[in-house]
């Protein structure tokens, strides 16, 4: 396990949450657009599915071009999907503004939390570096 594994994971998380903020903003901006269907981002689900792969018997790879059945964190991409199967109002729009606001708040808070954690990791690294200097 490398030193920067957790950092790259958090970087991925921040990217996904930033993307989700954009998608949710778009939903809120289109709350009154007739026929608009809400979109959302799934990243945590993809990540979780990937984490559960630990029990999978890994293929041996001796070259970087070999196909592996274990996905690296850097290969996981957030997925945008459109929720086409529901309708909230007569104009076929399915944006529930309360839900969007709650999701937006949750997303912002978890973004801030991840950014805090990332900052803390950097602080620890900084401490480790400067303590050795004494």
């Amino acid at each position, binding site marked *: 396990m490398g030193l920067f594994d957790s950092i790259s994971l958090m970087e991925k998380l921040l990217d996904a949450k930033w993307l989700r903020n954009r998608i949710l*903003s778009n939903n809120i*901006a*289109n709350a009154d657009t007739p026929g608009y269907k809400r979109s959302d981002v799934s990243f945590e689900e993809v990540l979780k599915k990937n984490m559960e792969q630990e029990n999978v018997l890994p293929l041996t790879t001796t070259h970087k071009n070999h196909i592996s059945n274990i996905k690296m964190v850097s290969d996981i991409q957030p997925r945008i999907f459109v929720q086409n199967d529901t309708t909230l109002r007569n104009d076929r729009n399915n944006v529930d503004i309360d839900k969007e606001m709650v999701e937006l708040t949750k997303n912002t808070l978890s973004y801030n939390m991840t950014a805090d954690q990332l900052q803390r990791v950097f602080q620890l690294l900084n401490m480790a570096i400067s303590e050795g200097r004494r």
Partner: protein
Amino acid sequence: MGFFDSMDISASGLTAQRLRMDVISNNIANVNTTRTEEGGPYRRERVVFQERKKDFSFEKILSNFFKNQSGQGVRVVAVEKDPAPFKLVYDPSHPDADALGYVRMPNVNVVTEMVDMISATRSYEANVTAINSAKSMITKALEIGRI
């Protein structure tokens, strides 16, 4: 994926809701207008919203299919006239009354306009909240480098 994309999206929502508010104000201001340039009483107007997409061409959509594509906010595509019939009010002393004493009044319902106005205000506020959350995220991201 730009840094200020989500703010631009929310700003398009603000612009659209503000235009909607302007149209509602115009409707309310003209609730008693019986003469217009095209003749006849004032007709109620309403805005039509449409989702704003980046590019509609097939190749662009295909090449961006696996990338993170999303909408670019909202825009007003038209300000439509409400085709609902005018109200007939019996007022023989009105200068625009017909031979029977009836006046054709605008098809504006003040209560409907008020409800629309509240809805526009709330949507505007929701977009402001979205901008603020994006702002706090950007501020937080800037703090990461500060050790």
